[in-house]
């Protein structure tokens, strides 16, 4: 049984950081209507199913990662889907392939590597991340 537990760090950060993502109409509709397993494109060659979900998270650029100009090293983002090996976020800024980051969820944290990013609109980037390590908060 999954016990509902909110990390105090997560609570503190989500209160102090501003959500700067500007969702496009298409993404807003998708996030409000879709849940559960998502269809995949044959060209994506995915090995695991993704599950559509909707929540917020905090992304911290890892100190070991390279930094790109104009990037916030800590920011809030929206979770759009998750799989056994990766997580899809909607961020207000661009993330670059191979950057390393830590994603804090309500009750878990994960070390991730950026796979790709796609701009959906102003202050709206779809970012695909590969989970390197994850940990449930106790």
């Amino acid at each position, binding site marked *: 049984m999954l016990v509902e537990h909110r990390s105090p760090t997560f609570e503190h950060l989500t209160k102090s950081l501003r959500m700067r993502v500007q969702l496009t109409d298409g993404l807003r509709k998708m996030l409000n209507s879709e849940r559960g397993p998502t269809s995949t494109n044959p060209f994506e060659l995915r090995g695991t199913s993704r599950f559509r979900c909707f929540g917020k998270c905090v992304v911290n650029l890892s100190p070991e990662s390279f930094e*790109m*100009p104009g990037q916030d090293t800590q920011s809030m983002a929206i979770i759009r889907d998750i799989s056994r090996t990766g997580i899809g976020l909607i961020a207000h800024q*661009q993330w670059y*392939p*191979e950057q390393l980051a830590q994603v804090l969820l309500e009750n878990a944290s994960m070390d991730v590597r950026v796979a790709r990013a*796609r*701009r959906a609109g102003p202050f709206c*980037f779809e970012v695909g991340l590969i989970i390197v390590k994850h940990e449930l908060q106790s």
Partner: protein
Amino acid sequence: MVNLTLIPISPLTLSSQFAIGVDVYSWQTGSKEQILFLAADETATDDALQRLATSTDVKLYISQYDSSTFQNYLRSHFDEWFDNDSISIRNKAAMLSEVVRNVLSDEFNRNETNSVVSAAKSLGSHIAHLASNKSLSGSELCQILHHDYGTFTHSANVGFYCSLLASQMGYSGEKLEEIATGGLLHDLGKLEIDERILNKPDKLDEFEFRTIKEHPLTGFRKLTKVKGVTTEQLLMTYQHHERLDGKGYPVGIGGSEIDIASRICSVADVFEAMTSNRPYRRSLSHKQTLEIMNEGVNKSFDKEVFQCWSNIVHRRLSI
């Protein structure tokens, strides 16, 4: 009749002081065959070099089997020539172009990213040095460079064009070297693409097109693992197919989100691609290319960067 696989060389790489070490053949417009112009152990006379430099009818070739000997000749004399003030900037550019193409060809075939980057930095520094010399015009550079199709030829030319363009836009010193090197590296990701796709003469199917569109991402990933690659060089590799209107790839960013070095690279890249022969089409003239590119101003290309490049090339057309 000479029956060899021949590759073109620039007449400007010949010297009256040294024997080139390989047989050189000439071919004149309208003639049916190549003839021996210079034997391996002979040196060209100053008169013959002068005539070649001004002639547009005569092309020089060497046997493909002699290409490594020819490269050894260029590389062994290159530093000496490069520092020699009595050798014209045009001759230096021709020699550098040959060396850059050959070094990139070797390095791209080996496909070891660290080694490619190290070679590109050294070549980028020489290219920037030439480009910052205001006596080298865009006209001369366009004439000197080879325009066959090969990822290494394309990368070499884009390195030269980026450098010339950046120099005209006021970049100098280390920044100019950075941009020249970035131009040489911008298509690094194409080394991972099957040549059958890259050289396919027919229309690409969806899978092949997706594969081609992965190259900025692949190149960026490879470069992030190499120490000493600058942010501009990373971005030139990652963003050179982005468009000002946000319809490019891989990210779809637009306007000022695209780094200025990437906007320079984008103009140089498209110009070079359109003016070179490709497996699927013949090259276009500079005039046609600029007209087509002009329609992409503020959609694909930055207006200021394109106009600067157009001025550089127009100076050539007016000569």
